[in-house]
């Protein structure tokens, strides 16, 4: 082949790898959300409603508020995450965008990672919005030590929720089952994550430490199990 021919013929493009592919999937969700604010608006309204209801239903203060707050927070995160997954799945469903992703030459795992990344971003946004609201409504003040430890627990808890939710959302796409399967499968599977995260959050608010129980190890273990299972099962699920 002469130099001119080589120049004239378009080069075969190099497909993005895992990280670039994940980033493109994640960026697509973020761009859509920044333009439409569909999921964020739902999450904000939902969080505000829950915070108001809990604040007025449970007239708590002092130590009692600290005791109840972790459970209420994680319950809110749980339902907000379901809303986030449902919205994300609906975006993929309309126009069958997920089909386009599956046909693209990026690693299948990049789709899992990208979708998990966007779900994680929405969950962190919810936590950043909801937690100060609850702290104000229940009159709970936290120091920098508690803040750091709570952030760690929120981070670890979110990993577990996102790993399970992303995988189930994809199963719903493939099975075309709508969101029923998502809700049915999600709640029982995330129970260990929720219990561990709630226990750890309670411990942080009560003693400014992660406590001596097995909850941290348990939470990390479930994070690892669910993330690994999601990673390994994703390709199998979308191809079979």
């Amino acid at each position, binding site marked *: 082949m002469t130099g001119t021919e080589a120049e004239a013929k378009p*080069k075969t493009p190099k*497909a*993005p790898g895992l990280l670039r592919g994940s980033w493109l999937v994640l960026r697509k969700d973020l761009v859509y959300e920044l333009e439409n604010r569909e999921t964020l608006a739902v999450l904000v309204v939902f969080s505000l409603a829950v915070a108001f209801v809990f604040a007025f239903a449970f007239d708590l203060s002092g130590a009692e508020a600290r005791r109840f707050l972790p459970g209420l927070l994680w319950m809110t995160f749980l339902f907000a995450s379901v809303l986030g997954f449902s919205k994300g799945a609906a975006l993929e469903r*309309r126009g069958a965008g997920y*089909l386009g992703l599956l046909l693209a030459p990026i690693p299948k795992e990049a789709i899992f990672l990208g979708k998990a990344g966007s779900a994680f971003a929405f969950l962190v946004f919810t936590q950043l919005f909801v937690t100060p609201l609850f702290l104000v409504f229940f009159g709970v003040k936290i120091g920098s030590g508690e803040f750091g430890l709570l952030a760690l627990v929120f981070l670890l808890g979110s990993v577990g929720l996102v790993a399970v939710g992303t995988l189930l959302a994809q199963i719903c796409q493939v099975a075309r089952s709508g969101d029923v399967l998502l809700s049915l499968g999600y709640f029982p599977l995330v129970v260990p994550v929720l219990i561990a995260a709630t226990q750890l959050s309670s411990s942080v608010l009560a003693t400014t430490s992660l406590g001596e129980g097995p909850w941290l190890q348990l939470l990390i273990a479930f994070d690892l199990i669910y993330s690994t299972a999601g990673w390994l099962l994703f390709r199998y699920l979308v191809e079979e």
Partner: protein
Amino acid sequence: MEPLSLAFEPGRYLLLGPNGAGKSTLLKLLAGLWRPSSGQVLYQGRDIHELDGDYRRQVALLTHELGMYEELTGLQNLVLFGALYGLPRPRRRAQELLELVGLRFFAHERVRAYSQGMKQRLALAKALLHRPKVLLLDEPFAGLDLRGAELLQQILEEAVSPDSLLILTTHDPERGFRIAERFLYLERGVLRAYGDRTRFDAEGIRERLRGVRDVGVF
């Protein structure tokens, strides 16, 4: 699908058969979207699932599903998929293709506002985005008006290079043969006939298609 052994040379093939014959399933298997329960799909001698992204970079599948995001604009969709296919200048290529399929003036409209025909043209633009060597089109004329169908035919004539493989399904063999040179006829997942136009007439495929369709109707 029943067990099937096929080898495609570069060229243009028409995949025919009544509803439920397995045409769409075969295309999805060839695209690597599904893994066969037994057997292999080979591309240049290698299993397409081993080649993975290297194979999908060479393939495009157009189905009755859009495979794009209705909430994004036509241009945003093509730029996104251009980037996913690793194109060096996805925006430029996206604009070229929007021009080619006659959607330049609708580039910044959200896809959900497009008509069915416009969506089909956008899907074609996406399929051609990365200059695939294997182009699989499932009912590409569905939803297109006469002008759209002629445009599609013209685009395929120009855009599909001689060293590429084009397989399209259609319920309109006459239109299909304006693009394709050879055909394959499937019935209930079994390959019943294949060959060129002469063979198509000799085998009475048109009548068989009509007959099966009649049985389906009554």
